Each structure stands twice: as structure tokens, then as C-alpha cells.
């Protein structure tokens, strides 16, 4: 009976893996290239079904009844919140992929299937209640991601991105495992609750080393400074729909995972990791803002922007309060919408022959040739910069508020100062689009799906998004409360 209960709780993962297998067979039968588009839409339908499956979990408090497989996995409100974001982001980035891949001659059914398996891994990551579950989920996601980065095998940049991501990702996994083994050795358990209980009285030096290595490994996965070096190269080299995917769903999963590890497993020793997180947050914000200034490639620019945003999100973690955790979740939801919108806008930049354009110079004077794309991209940029009427401001506001409430005024002040530097390059893109002489390159037509997605994310980050603050805040608070249930 216990097994049946557990199987019910992991329903989204079961659905994802079974439909992944079924679609794999279908692809083998129908021909991978021919069935690509159909299987992409079926995968989106599967992800939508999974979203519906996890929706009731949004109000689940922490507790034994949502724990599956003897406390390896938890289907609580926090997991549900993160999973909704992950599945929506994965589905959105899948929807924009077919035109790009068909043009590149790489339309294959394995693409959506790998995304499905990656989404399954990400779901396991945010539901993990045990270091083993964490690692298995992380590897499932990472392995699929390495392949996706190298998906255009005839493109040198894509192959380079895949190889770089693989080598550095394997190194980070090694660091993470080393930290986990130290943690296990010095606490005698791999379960989060057990680690928290074992560290109640104080943290041994060995466990402190373990914690540091675990955080270093996770910082790589969320691309926080000083483990961010791979991000611009991989984001630039990977096919644009894959970059959009990398920048959205896995970020949510890895940050959710980091929150769980920091607040649940090491929650009783917050002082031990707070300074690490504070450093990573400040360094990410500053490096992300300064690094983006000289970029001429829009994908690289968005990569630095994602590093910058991860820094802001980590400020919420540094606060180590329920308000901070809920602010992180709100920020993540807004961040996903902004990122998807930004990359969809980049995907819509095509020249007359339908080739993708991704340089900053190509969008010069875009407001006169393609006013709608320009307006969408401008909104995303203003929102990323955190300029008030747009929803991006709200994310930054709640994070800073949580930091100030936790008594971290200098951290918040530094973050605000750095966000002003960041605003420079976001506004530079807007200036190039609206005030430079038209380059006249962006003349190609783009897909309907792209336009719809850009419109949807623009609507979400527009001032109309503030109507959602109450509902979003409510769900985020319920989810964040889960992390502090044990404390």
C-alpha cells in the first residue's frame, strides 16, 4: 500500500518517463525527421498534462503524507511551484524549436524526447529529500542537456558548446559528489532531515568542507560567479532554442535544489553558508553587469544577464528567511517569463533567407522595420533592468525587501548599485533598436508560435502582471513555508 501511495506521488515523473519511451518508439517507427513536429507537439501536451497534475500540489504542506519512497522524494508545495515553472518553461522553449531546427536541417524527434527526460530530471531535483535523489535528478537533467547543447552536430560552435558543457559539467558533478561524500561521512546520513538533525549542535570541520564543495558544485549548475565561465560560451554556441531552454527551466531547477539543500539540509547551520551565498550573489551581480557591457552577440549578452539575475535571486537565499525564499520564487517566475520572451525575440530575428541573426548590430533600427519585435525585446530589456512600471521591478523589489528585513542593508544597497550598472547594457540594446540607423537586415518572417509566445511573455511582464502579485505571492509563501517546516 505504501508503494502505491509513493507511485501516486511521483505521477508526473512516471508520465514523463513513460511518454518519453512511447514517443521514442513512435519516432523509431515513423522516422525521426518526419515525425519531429508531431512528436514536439505531443511532448508539449505531455508537459501540459504534467503541469495540471502538479497544480493540486501547490497547497501541500510539508509532511509525511507527501513523502514518497521512505523520504527520498517529496511532492510538497515547493516542489509543485518549481515544477509548474519548469514544465511551462520547457514546453514554451519546445514550441519555438521546430522552425529553427528545420532550417538548420536538424529536425529530429529525439530533441523533444530529450527535453522530456531533462524535465523529468529537473522535477526530481526540486523534489529531492536526499542527496542521492538530488544527484540522480541532476545527472538525468545534465546528460540530456549536454546532448541538446551539441544537437547541431554539423555546426562547430554547437559541438564546442556541448563539449565544453560536458567537461565542465562532469568536473562540477565530481566536486558535488566529493562534497556529498564528506557530508555523508561527517553526518552519517544522506537525507536532508537527517543532516539537519545531525548538524543541530554544531558543524564539524569535515562537514563544513562538504557543505562548501556541495555549494561550489551547485553554483556551477546555477552559473553563479566564480563558476560562471562556461555560461557565455555554451549559451552562444548552443542552438538558440536550446539556449532559451538552458536559461529558463534548468535555472529554476538548480536554484530550487540549492534552496532545498541550503535551507532544509543545512538550515540549522545557516551562518555556515550565508557568507558563501552572499559572496556568490554580489560577485554574480557585478560580473554579470560588467561582463555584458562589451558583448556584441545578443545570446552572450543574455547569458551575462542570466548570471546577473542569478545574483539577485541568491540575495533572497542569503537572507535565509521565509520571506527571502518566497521572494526568490517570485523572482524566478518573473525571470522565466523575461528569459523566454528575450530568447523568443532573438529567435524572431531572421534575414531574408531565413537565417538567424544574433548580433547587436543586426537589430539596429529594428523599431522601424519590425516594430512589434522591437517593442517586445524592449519590454524584456526594460523589465530585466528592473525599471518600475514593468514586472521585472517587482521581483527585484521583493528580493531587496527580504534582504533589508533580514538586516542585510549593505547587501541590498550593493545589489541596487550594481543593478544600475546592469541597466546600462539593457538600455544600450533599446537605444540601438530605437535610435540607430536601420541596418535593414531583419526582414525575414517568423513563425506564428513565436509571436504568440512573445506576446504572452510581454503581457506577463507588462504592468498588467501586477494583478498577479497577490496570487503569485500567496503560492510562493506557501511553497517557501515548506522549506522552514522542519526548523
Amino acid at each position, binding site marked *: 500500500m505504501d508503494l502505491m501511495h509513493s507511485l501516486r506521488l511521483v505521477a508526473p515523473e512516471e508520465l514523463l518517463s513513460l511518454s518519453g519511451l512511447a514517443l521514442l518508439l513512435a519516432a523509431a517507427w515513423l522516422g525521426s525527421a518526419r515525425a519531429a513536429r508531431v512528436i514536439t507537439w505531443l511532448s508539449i501536451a505531455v508537459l501540459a498534462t504534467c503541469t495540471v497534475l502538479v497544480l493540486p500540489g501547490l497547497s501541500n504542506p510539508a509532511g509525511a503524507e507527501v513523502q514518497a519512497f521512505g523520504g527520498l522524494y517529496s511532492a510538497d508545495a515547493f516542489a509543485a511551484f518549481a515544477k509548474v515553472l519548469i514544465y511551462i518553461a520547457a514546453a514554451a522553449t519546445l514550441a519555438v524549436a521546430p522552425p529553427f531546427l528545420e532550417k538548420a536541417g536538424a529536425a529530429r524527434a529525439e530533441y523533444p524526447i530529450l527535453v522530456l527526460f531533462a524535465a523529468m530530471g529537473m522535477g526530481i531535483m526540486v523534489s529531492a529529500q536526499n542527496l542521492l535523489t538530488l544527484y540522480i535528478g541532476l545527472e538525468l537533467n545534465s546528460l540530456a542537456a549536454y546532448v541538446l547543447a551539441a544537437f547541431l552536430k554539423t555546426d562547430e560552435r554547437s559541438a564546442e558548446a556541448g563539449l565544453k558543457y560536458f567537461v565542465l559539467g562532469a568536473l562540477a558533478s565530481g566536486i558535488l559528489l566529493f562534497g556529498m561524500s564528506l557530508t555523508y561521512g561527517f553526518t552519517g546520513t544522506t537525507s536532508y532531515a537527517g543532516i539537519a538533525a545531525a548538524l543541530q549542535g554544531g558543524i564539524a570541520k*569535515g562537514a563544513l568542507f562538504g557543505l562548501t564543495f556541495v555549494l561550489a558544485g551547485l553554483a556551477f549548475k546555477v552559473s553563479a560567479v566564480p563558476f560562471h565561465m562556461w555560461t557565455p560560451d555554451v549559451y552562444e554556441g548552443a542552438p538558440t532554442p536550446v539556449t532559451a531552454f538552458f536559461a529558463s527551466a534548468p535555472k529554476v531547477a538548480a536554484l530550487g535544489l540549492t534552496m532545498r539543500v541550503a535551507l532544509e539540509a543545512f538550515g540549522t547551520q545557516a551562518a555556515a553558508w550565508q557568507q558563501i551565498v552572499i559572496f556568490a550573489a554580489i560577485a554574480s551581480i557585478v560580473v554579470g553587469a560588467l561582463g555584458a557591457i562589451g558583448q556584441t552577440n545578443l545570446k552572450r549578452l543574455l547569458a551575462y544577464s542570466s548570471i546577473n539575475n542569478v545574483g539577485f535571486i541568491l540575495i533572497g537565499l542569503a537572507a535565509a528567511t521565509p520571506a527571502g525564499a518566497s521572494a526568490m520564487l517570485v523572482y524566478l517566475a518573473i525571470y522565466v517569463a523575461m528569459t523566454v520572451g528575450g530568447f523568443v525575440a532573438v529567435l524572431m530575428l531572421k534575414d531574408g533567407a531565413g537565417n538567424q541573426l544574433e548580433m547587436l548590430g543586426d537589430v539596429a533600427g529594428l523599431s522601424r522595420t519590425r516594430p512589434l519585435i522591437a517593442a517586445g525585446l524592449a519590454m524584456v530589456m526594460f523589465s530585466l533592468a528592473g525599471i518600475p512600471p514593468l514586472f521585472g521591478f517587482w521581483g527585484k523589489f521583493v528580493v531587496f525587501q527580504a534582504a533589508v528585513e533580514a538586516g542585510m542593508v549593505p547587501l541590498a544597497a550593493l545589489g541596487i548599485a550594481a543593478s544600475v550598472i546592469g541597466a546600462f547594457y539593457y538600455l544600450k540594446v533599446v537605444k540601438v533598436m530605437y535610435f540607430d540607423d536601420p541596418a535593414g537586415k531583419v526582414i525575414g518572417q517568423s513563425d506564428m508560435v513565436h509571436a504568440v509566445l512573445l506576446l504572452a511573455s510581454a503581457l506577463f511582464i507588462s504592468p498588467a502582471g501586477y494583478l498577479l502579485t497577490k496570487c503569485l505571492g500567496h503560492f510562493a509563501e506557501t511553497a517557501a513555508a515548506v522549506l522552514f517546516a522542519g526548523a
Partner: protein
Amino acid sequence: MIQLLAFYLFAALTLAAGALTILSRNPVHSVLWLIVAFFNAAGLMVLVGAEFIAMLLVIVYVGAVAVLFLFVVMMLNIDFAALRAGFIKNFPLGILLAAVLLAEVLMGVGVVQGGALQLGTPDGSAPVPAGAQNIEAIGAVLYGKYLFLFEVAGVILLVAMIGAIVLTHRERKGVRGQNIARQVARRPDEATVNMQPDVGKGVSL
């Protein structure tokens, strides 16, 4: 008594095979000596009661890894004269590495004498079933407590397989596939043709 004898037999053979692995001049012989060493190490594992690891050594290391080594050694044409040429040049580096390793061993001995580390106590969430063989115990944990993770690990391997195929598979033109139905439906009278070439014209070179 018999156990002691068996231990010395296995241990001596492991050491001897290990030494011969690095000393033999023919790389194929080296790999064969390595296999002897693996078998004797498996014997040692049985003696300490770790029959699962003994089986792993035989199945995985002898059955898969050593055979792979053998393939690699046989397929790569290694020029041993060229390899030995660098020996004198790299000798100081080798000595340095050996000194570092020796220092580590000595430090390790010192650490062991310094007393045990203050490790955490196991939480008892995965107790060893009383009186179970260790294969049984591993099976109970793997297919019981960690069933979910075991299954997901299977999915990871599947993803790795899909990835390897996606990244290396190329559609090639002009590949002649096997058409089993055609093969089966083929009759002797359409398969063989009787020719009667003129004398001296049957073969063209």
C-alpha cells in the same frame, strides 16, 4: 589453517601477477597477467566474505574491462622503442612523482596512528538484514529502499544511449539494407544462372 594457506596463495599470486603485468615486454602478455591478478584478487575478496565484489571483479573487470584492454592493445600498433626513448629524459620527473607518492604513504601512516576521525553515526535508515548474505543485503537496499533511484538511474543510461546515437548517427545514402521477405521469397531458378562461356573467355583480368 586452510584459509591462511589460501590467503598466502592468492596474495602471492596477485603480487606476482601484478609485477609481471608491468615487467613483461609484450603488452598482450601484460593484459593476460592483469587478468590473473584480477582472478586472485577475487579469491581474496571471497576470503574476507565479500562475495559480491568477488563476482564483480570477475564479471566486470575480467569479462569486460580486461577484454577491452586486450582489444585496444591488439588494435593499436604501439611502438615500444619510441615509448622507451623518453624513459631517461623523464626519469627525474618519475623520481619526483615517486617521492611525492612515498611522502603521501608516510603521511597516511602518521594519520592512521593519530587516531580515528570523528565521523557521524549512521542514522540506521538502511539496516543490514540480520544473517543475510551481502548480495541479499545489497539487493534489499537497491530494489527496496532505493527502488525509485535505481529505476531513474536506468533512465539516465537510456538518455546516455539516445545521446550517443543522436550525436554520432548519420543518415547515409546508398546503404543496402537487408530485405528479409525478399530473401525468403527467392527461388533457386532466379538465384542461379547457367552460363556457357567460350574457351579462354570465362575470366577477364
